[in-house]
């Protein structure tokens, strides 16, 4: 097994952190953009860039509520995103197991 088998969309430090953070939410919950930024400690620009990639892959969904000063952008993991993260961690575990001396 090699690192190539890991989903390249998730296998980047910032995106992995975003996915894991969103996976900690309960079913049906979402997280505000600023809440996600606080938890991942990414700059707004970085976060937007990574979210766009995850959204293009169908792993996260963003939603904007309200307008003006009351606008709130929320982010949630999609079902596909949750499955992709589960698959990523499964492959990662196999990689670590195969690398460790038995």
């Amino acid at each position, binding site marked *: 097994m090699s690192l190539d088998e890991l989903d390249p969309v998730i296998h980047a*430090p910032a995106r992995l952190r975003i996915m894991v953070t969103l996976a900690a939410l309960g079913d049906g919950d979402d997280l505000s953009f600023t809440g996600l930024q606080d938890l991942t400690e990414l*700059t707004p620009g970085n976060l937007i860039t990574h979210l766009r990639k995850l959204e293009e892959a169908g792993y996260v969904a963003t939603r904007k509520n309200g307008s003006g000063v009351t606008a709130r952008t929320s982010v949630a993991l999609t079902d596909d995103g949750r499955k992709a993260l589960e698959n990523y961690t499964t492959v990662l575990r196999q990689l670590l197991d195969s690398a460790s001396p038995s």
Partner: protein
Amino acid sequence: MNDGTGTDQGMNMNAADAAAIIAEADARARHILRPDHRVTFLVWGVIWFVGDGLMWLAVRDQHPYHGPNPGGYAATVLLAVLVSLASVGQSRAETGVGGLSVLRRWTFFLSVLAGIGGAFAIEGALVRAGASRPVVGVFEAVAPIAVIGLIYLARFSAQQAWAVAGLGLWLVIVAAVGAYTGPQTVWAVIALAAGPAFVLAAAVEQRLQRA
């Protein structure tokens, strides 16, 4: 914590690095996003301990029994309801969590409101049916704590939050056992068994938050 560069490539991240990021991000998110009931439990503990303690002091020497001061009783119940209202969205809003969990909190508050409102309606029916003042007194002492206990038990056992579900079960037991001690002692039983149980639950929450 910030990967610093904005890079989106994981070429330099090996499997061990990825596992470390997962562990760290998961622990951090669960710690911050975990619902925090400490303040609600603490305030509710004080309300039940002081409120029902004062009720007991007011009724313990009553012969015949004519019940606590209606204003004091209403104030205690109202305070308990307001605390449950204040807990809606309290800590979750601070962390930016929205969605279904906010809806669940409103459902919890409305359940408390409906349960206590229903209990008052039943109390009225008991009076109308000719129940004696001591019988009504037992009912008005145990109904609020039984309602809240049942709601906690149902809501948190469904979420497998066993510590809070256990608190709910304990409150139901306190209400049931307390009812057998009579219209005067029941207030002391609830003050001493329910109030500290809430404070204990707040302490358990504190430990879980730190874990």
